[in-house]
């Protein structure tokens, strides 16, 4: 099995990548040091490293690298599931207005100072995303449901919330705030904390498990909702479950890391090119590719123009598009 081989190679590669990526940066550290700190922190033995080195690994870099992996895996799987459920190869996690709503929520907190003291940027973004998704669901329901209506409602909500965000930024934000908001809009893992990692990883694990549990039913959507129903899939409940789960996961990830584009749109296609369209194989490979890509993208984002940070969303596209082009070209040659 091709997917089996890919996972057998890819999972160790991901673990190695986490260690290597965490070691890369201004302080002189090795992947072995990273492993040592992790071991010590988990209560297995001591480390001879300085407290500063330990702090860099455990408090600064490791949560960031892990969050990159979680975001990459989660966004990629959300994209794959939405593309199948909505039967739209251009669907991505941000199609349903979630990133636009999150940015409105974040801007409301940062620029307008709404809920300061009770809501942080993360909570504000999550709330905004939830409101936007609610608007999309309501709009789609009013329009009679169905995947086409969901997509249209998502596009409309995205436009609406983007306009509100732009309006607030233009009329109320100072230069410093504008820069901060823009950085967040393009996606960045620079604010990663252990708390975020824990929440994001938990939501991600549950959401991916739910999607994997319905992998074969997702296959049945290939020829549309009627075809899926005639293959025994309870279409409406499944669609509602999967839209809800992917929306929750996307909202969580956007709240902690901003709207990192490209991953959710393109990696599902890359995974299908590698292992075929069956979700049983494609979903795990999609998650793995997403995690690997984002770990390295973030490493590049914080080191390429150091000490300046490049937004992760910018790097994903700059690195990802050429890689995807190579994959497409090789695939064409193979057929």
């Amino acid at each position, binding site marked *: 099995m091709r997917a089996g081989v890919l996972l057998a190679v890819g999972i160790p590669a991901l673990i190695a990548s986490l260690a290597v990526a965490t070691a890369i940066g201004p302080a002189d550290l090795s992947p072995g040091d990273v492993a040592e700190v992790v071991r010590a922190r988990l209560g297995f033995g001591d480390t001879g490293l300085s407290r500063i080195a330990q702090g860099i690994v455990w408090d600064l870099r490791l949560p960031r690298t892990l969050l990159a992996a979680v975001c990459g895996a989660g966004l990629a799987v959300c994209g794959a599931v939405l593309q199948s459920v909505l039967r739209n190869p251009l669907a991505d996690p941000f199609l349903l207005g979630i990133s636009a709503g999150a940015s409105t929520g974040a801007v409301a907190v940062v620029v307008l100072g709404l809920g300061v003291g009770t809501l942080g940027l993360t909570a504000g973004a999550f709330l905004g995303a939830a409101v936007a998704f609610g608007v999309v669901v309501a709009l789609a329901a009013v329009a009679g449901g169905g995947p086409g209506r969901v997509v249209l409602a998502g596009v409309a909500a995205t436009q609406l919330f983007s306009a509100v965000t732009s309006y607030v930024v233009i009329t109320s934000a100072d230069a410093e705030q504008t820069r901060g908001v823009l950085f967040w809009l393009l996606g960045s893992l620079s604010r990663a904390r252990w708390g975020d990692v824990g929440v994001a990883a938990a939501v991600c694990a549950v959401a991916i498990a739910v999607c994997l549990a319905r992998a074969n039913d997702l296959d049945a959507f290939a020829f*549309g909702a009627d075809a899926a129903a005639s293959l025994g899939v309870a279409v409406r409940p499944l669609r509602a479950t999967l839209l809800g789960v992917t929306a929750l996961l996307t909202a969580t990830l956007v709240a902690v890391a901003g709207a990192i584009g490209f991953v959710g749109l393109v990696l599902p296609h890359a995974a299908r090119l590698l292992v075929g369209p069956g979700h049983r194989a494609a979903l795990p490979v999609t998650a793995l590719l997403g995690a690997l890509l984002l770990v390295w993208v973030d490493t590049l984002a914080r080191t390429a123009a150091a000490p300046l940070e490049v937004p992760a969303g910018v790097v994903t596209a700059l690195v990802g598009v050429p890689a995807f082009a190579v994959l497409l070209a090789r695939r064409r040659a193979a057929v």
Partner: protein
Amino acid sequence: MSLRAQDVTWSADGRVIVDRVSVRVEPGSTLGLLGPNGSGKSSLLRLLAGLRKPTGGAVLLDGVTVTGSAARGRRGFARRVALVEQQVSTEVDLTVAEVVALGRVPHRGGWGALSEPDHAVVAQALDRTGMAHLARRRWHSLSGGERQRAQLARALAQEPRELLLDEPTNHLDIAHQLDLLALVRRLPVTAVVALHDLNLAAAYCDDLLVLAAGRVVAAGAPATVLTADLVREVYGVRCVITPLDDRGTPHIRFLPPDQ
């Protein structure tokens, strides 16, 4: 008992598409659905497949009303009843074998891999439809007729006892039309087939049901149903009907319209 419809009515956007239609199929036999475009054949098949909820009457499988909504019920239903729709499309880059394997979805559950028996059923379905040599071809590279046969193979992979086919001979050359209908007759299934070709219907169906404007206008054995009067009334076409063989299978020759 098999699958039957009892006084089924279905309307969409305020228009009655299927009007108090009852269908009874002898287990193991083949029922042909006839009628001009828009007479409700496809809608009736969708109702029988549990994809639409009747606005009146009921569809029954072994005497139990087909509800179509509950998850568990749907899966069991899909193991009994398979539907081949008229034209289907996909954006997904599937091989023929993968399309046929979709027929195992109701047997597999949400996560399970294809088992050895699943593979055997898929291989047999490909074999029966003459698609085995195309198993590794991409769906998008198939001709219309090959797609139709791949969908039939998918339906067979569901191992149905009731098979619903919506104009399955469309896009097929004459040899494959005859092959397909002969196959459907040979299979140990109860079949309901919507057809346009009256001669094929007469030759391959045990019984016929003729629809016009959503209503049943005739039902019974081909020799009794297919009369020149009925063809003129339903299709607005003149014809001459002669018996083809000693079983009395009617053969229809159409005449050009009156000038």
